[in-house]
């Protein structure tokens, strides 16, 4: 276990090699190094997983400590990892999906001049994410946390010559920083509450010293959740994620699927004990998650950029994950995280394939009829869409359904209803996407049309693998097989404490029929969504236009994403800049510096005034002497 460090170290080494010498290496080597690093990391992770499985479930955690990072007074933070089922799942997802995305990128980015730089960043990204999930204390987690923020900044702004790209990168970093601000404060509060940042120590201390509902714990968890809101793009800090598609498409896949955005969910799950002790925070998390799920889905309905639709779907799906965590179904949240990683990676890579084929076209209004020309892409994309829509037996069905189910079971009826509505919307917008892209008449530029080509093998193979995973990924949580719910049982040691605190109903499983019935409801809702999309976009293509005209105001709100970006710009960014400008002019220049320079000029003008007594006239000089003498004499006389 001591060798766990190689998992993040491998991609980091790849980053160093490609970052320092990549420009001088052949492209082939660059690709090999990057993919090789990720592949080896994945293999190491598998090996680790294997070793982990050898242990008895209750002993499945290791904490290899490497060295003391910071030690000041009674504060200390180690560089040390925590390997347990939860982090194992994440490691596998990150390295596995990450590896596929790397491979895909070899093809996708082949023509780009920043090839080496790209792979360096990509490796760094994976490395940071691995540090995040493997950390055994909050501070080290924060290192990875900020690290992925940095990498997202670098990768989203990868095409730095594009203004929108560099803007998006900057936005990602700054919005993340706002979240990190909360996270950091959460760390402080944690340390001064528990005297440690080590997860296991914190949890033990929390369970031992605090009762549920303690305000301090609510504070800690809410602050940490602010971080999660930033990283995992929840309301109100979701704004960066849709813009993140400015980066190369595989990057979107990486950010949206395997890494980065899942960090928040992972963190909440990791701190399940704390959250369990803070019911208010749990409720808050669930509410935010649910709201975000619906809110983002609603925006997704009308977007025309293929990646933007997917981006909003990510925001929405993350909402589901938080909903799951918020209602105490941490397993469901993580489960959805994993399946989402599969199908969202698939969808993005598929979208990338489409864009690649169309030489950069992203507007679905100008696509259509690509089914024939891009068969592999179409097939895999469809599978991804079915998965995300939650159609049995695709992976998304199991995970999403479990969240919905747990939501209802924990007594959050309203949230359940909303989430269900969100699921319908999801199905609708996903299939809107599918129909507009692959079905119907081609609306392509004529001369772009004959360039259309299917993706090369490096891109196609990852798509197929991911498609397979999107199909099968959910089966490990099937109730029936091998004692049922393998995934849940694997994670059980991690969550059992939280579950115990919550006094969860999960112990007593609800009747199977109820579960079955709810499954049916979910599937029905999803199918309804798909059907609606079919009616609107295949049967009657003019209908959306009519609707848009009829509900023009609502449409505009949706199309402009509720004007949230504009609101932020007008309410926060611009006033701040304006205030800064004004302060600089008036306070800094005029008032403060004016006072400094003013002191100087006061003395100078005093000097000018005093100089006037120097008249050059002997009489005046003598008079002054006499006056001085008089003063002296008078003073003496007064004695």
């Amino acid at each position, binding site marked *: 276990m001591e060798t766990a460090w190689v998992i993040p170290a491998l991609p980091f080494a790849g980053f160093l090699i490609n970052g320092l010498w990549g420009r001088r290496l052949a492209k082939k080597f660059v690709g090999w190094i990057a993919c090789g690093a990720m592949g080896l990391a994945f293999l190491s992770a598998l090996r680790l997983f294997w070793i982990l499985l050898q242990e008895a479930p209750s002993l499945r955690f290791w904490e290899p400590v490497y060295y003391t990072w910071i030690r000041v007074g009674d504060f200390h933070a180690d560089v040390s990892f925590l390997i347990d089922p939860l982090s194992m799942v994440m490691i596998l997802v990150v390295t596995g999906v990450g590896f596929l995305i790397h491979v895909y990128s070899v093809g996708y980015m082949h023509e780009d001049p920043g090839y080496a730089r790209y792979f360096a960043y990509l490796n760094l990204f994976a490395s940071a994410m691995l540090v995040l999930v493997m950390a055994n204390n909050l501070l080290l987690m924060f290192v990875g946390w900020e690290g992925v923020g940095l990498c997202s900044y670098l990768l989203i702004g990868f095409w730095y010559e594009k203004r929108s790209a560099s803007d998006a990168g900057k936005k990602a970093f700054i919005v993340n920083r706002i979240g990190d601000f909360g996270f950091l404060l959460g760390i402080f509060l944690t340390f001064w509450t528990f005297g440690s940042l080590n997860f296991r120590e914190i949890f033990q201390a929390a369970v031992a010293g605090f009762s549920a509902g303690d305000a301090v714990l609510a504070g800690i968890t809410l602050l940490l959740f602010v971080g999660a809101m930033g990283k995992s793009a929840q309301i109100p800090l979701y704004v960066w994620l849709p813009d993140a598609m400015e980066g190369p498409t595989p990057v979107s896949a990486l950010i949206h699927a395997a890494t980065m955005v899942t960090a928040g969910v992972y963190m909440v799950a990791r701190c399940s004990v704390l959250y369990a002790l803070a019911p208010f925070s749990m409720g808050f998390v669930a509410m935010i998650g649910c709201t975000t799920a619906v809110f983002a889905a609603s925006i997704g309905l009308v977007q025309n950029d293929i990646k933007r639709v997917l981006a909003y779907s990510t925001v929405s799906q993350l909402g589901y994950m938080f909903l799951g965590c918020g209602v105490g179904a941490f397993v469901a949240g993580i489960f959805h995280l994993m399946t989402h990683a599969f199908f969202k990676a698939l969808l993005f890579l598929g979208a990338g394939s489409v864009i690649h084929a169309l030489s950069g076209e992203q507007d679905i209004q100008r696509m259509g009829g690509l089914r024939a020309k891009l068969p592999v892409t179409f097939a895999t994309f469809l599978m991804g869409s079915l998965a995300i829509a939650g159609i049995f037996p695709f992976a998304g069905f199991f995970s999403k359904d479990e969240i919905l189910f747990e939501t209802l079971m924990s007594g959050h009826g309203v949230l359940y209803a909303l989430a269900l509505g969100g699921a319908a919307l999801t199905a609708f917008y996903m299939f809107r996407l599918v129909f507009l892209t692959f079905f119907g008449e081609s609306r392509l530029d004529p001369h772009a049309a004959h360039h259309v080509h299917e993706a090369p093998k490096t891109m196609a193979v990852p798509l197929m693998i991911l498609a397979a995973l999107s199909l099968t990924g959910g089966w490990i949580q099937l109730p029936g097989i091998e004692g049922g719910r393998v995934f849940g049982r694997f994670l059980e040691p991690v969550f059992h404490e939280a579950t115990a605190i919550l006094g969860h109903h999960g112990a007593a499983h609800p009747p199977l029929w109820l579960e079955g019935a709810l499954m049916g409801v979910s599937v029905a809702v999803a199918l309804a969504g798909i059907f609606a999309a079919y009616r609107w976009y295949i049967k009657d293509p003019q209908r959306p236009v009519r609707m848009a005209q009829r509900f023009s105001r609502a449409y505009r709100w949706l199309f402009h994403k509720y004007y949230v970006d504009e609101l932020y710009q007008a309410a926060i960014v611009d006033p701040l800049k304006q205030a800064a400008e004004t302060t600089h002019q008036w306070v800094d220049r005029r008032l403060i510096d004016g006072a400094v320079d003013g002191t*100087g000029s006061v*003395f*100078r003008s*005093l*000097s*000018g005034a*005093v*100089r006037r*007594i*120097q008249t*050059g006239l*002997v009489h*005046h*000089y*003598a008079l*002054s*002497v006499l*006056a*001085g*003498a008089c*003063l*002296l*004499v008078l*003073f*003496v*006389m007064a*004695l």
Partner: protein
Amino acid sequence: MSALTVLYECQGIVPALILSATGVVILLLDAFSPLGRKGRLGAVAVTGTVFALGSLAVAPSGAEFFHGMVVWDRFSVFLSAVLMVGALLVFFLSFDPLRRSGLECGEYYALVLFATTGMILMVQAAHFIMLFLGLEIFSIAIYILVGMPRHEKRANEAALKYVLLGGFASGFLLYGLTFIYGATGSLSMSVMAAQLGKADAVFNSYLLFGSALVLAGFAFKLALVPFHLWTPDVYEGAPTPITAYMAVGVKAAVFGALVRTFWVALPTVHPHWAVFFWALAAVTMTVGNLMALAQESVKRMLAFSSIAHAGYLFVAVVADSKEGLTALLVYLLAYTVMNVGAFGVMVAVQNRQESGERLEDFRGLSSRSPFLAAFMALFLFSLAGIPPTAGFVGKFMVFSAAVQSGYTWLVIIAVINSVIAAYYYLRVVIMVYRPGEEAAAEDPASEAARLSAGERGALFGAGALTAVVGLWPNAFWDLARQAVHVLF
């Protein structure tokens, strides 16, 4: 008095004797030397001064001579040394300007020597007759020296103003002395002190009135505000070496006399004046600095700065303690070397170009003559009181003494003043170091070699002393401390 007695008593005035004798010798030599060879007269003056300085090595007895007219103690020795160092540096400074302006004559050196004699007698004085005579000797000599460039209107004006106002102030001094005489029945300092030792003797309106006028007379010579108005005009109009001499020599001598008057003769009077002294010091340094701030002539600026320095020096007087007077002496030494140094650079600049008084004349000095520029910076920073220079040591000791005596607010005013002062010194430094014409840049070493003997003597001498006093002040502090010891 028999000849033997006179000879015996003469041991008390050896430096004054040597200096005045040198003056007479120079006058004689002058009469017999051909026109082109007047340069050697300067060498004679330097030699005589060096001898006089050397005579100080004989340990002073502390005794009074000539029926209590003069006293030869460590206090006199210290100040005499300062005065002679100043005179020596001024001699060096004078060589070139005199040659250039054709003023070269024995009288110049003789007058400086006589003036120095007068100053030394003044600080040695144990009797007010001697004090008055010393004062008048150097005053009259300096009136003449100021007016020596007869064809320059400004020199005429300066001399006229100085002689008129100087006489006016002498009148006050003299008139004050009469009242002190009336109140104490004597003009001998020790007798006075004994007389005033009696209880309540100080509350004598004659005495108070008289001492006020005496102080006014001293204040005029020291250029304390509001007695200072003559200073800039006279300093500006006088030949630059004489300005330097006036600025340092007169101050040292008059401060010496002031200390003797108020600590030896009237020790019970001055404590009552603490408040007034306080105000005098504060106003003097503030007004001096403010006036200096906007000057376009460096010479005039240095004149005002000398007023400000008089203010700082007076802070030491305010402190009214052994430490304060020690600091006063050290500061006088520091002030002498750095101020003569600054004027020396000005003279050197004047030697190289038509004018060297205006700020503009110093523009880009560092590229024309980096060596002079470095010296100018050294002296100006020293005047500004930046460590580790003599100026800092002096200021530090003065402020330290004042704080010790509880005059913290006065010291705060003083330090704020030194910031104001730093501004106008800095203006000159900036002018000097202002990058501009890079063409004529030359190497400091070769430039140093091309300095004339006089410049070299003055600048190296003043520079070395400025640095030495700044870095190893302890020896000077010890000497000053012993010197002050005799007053308490």
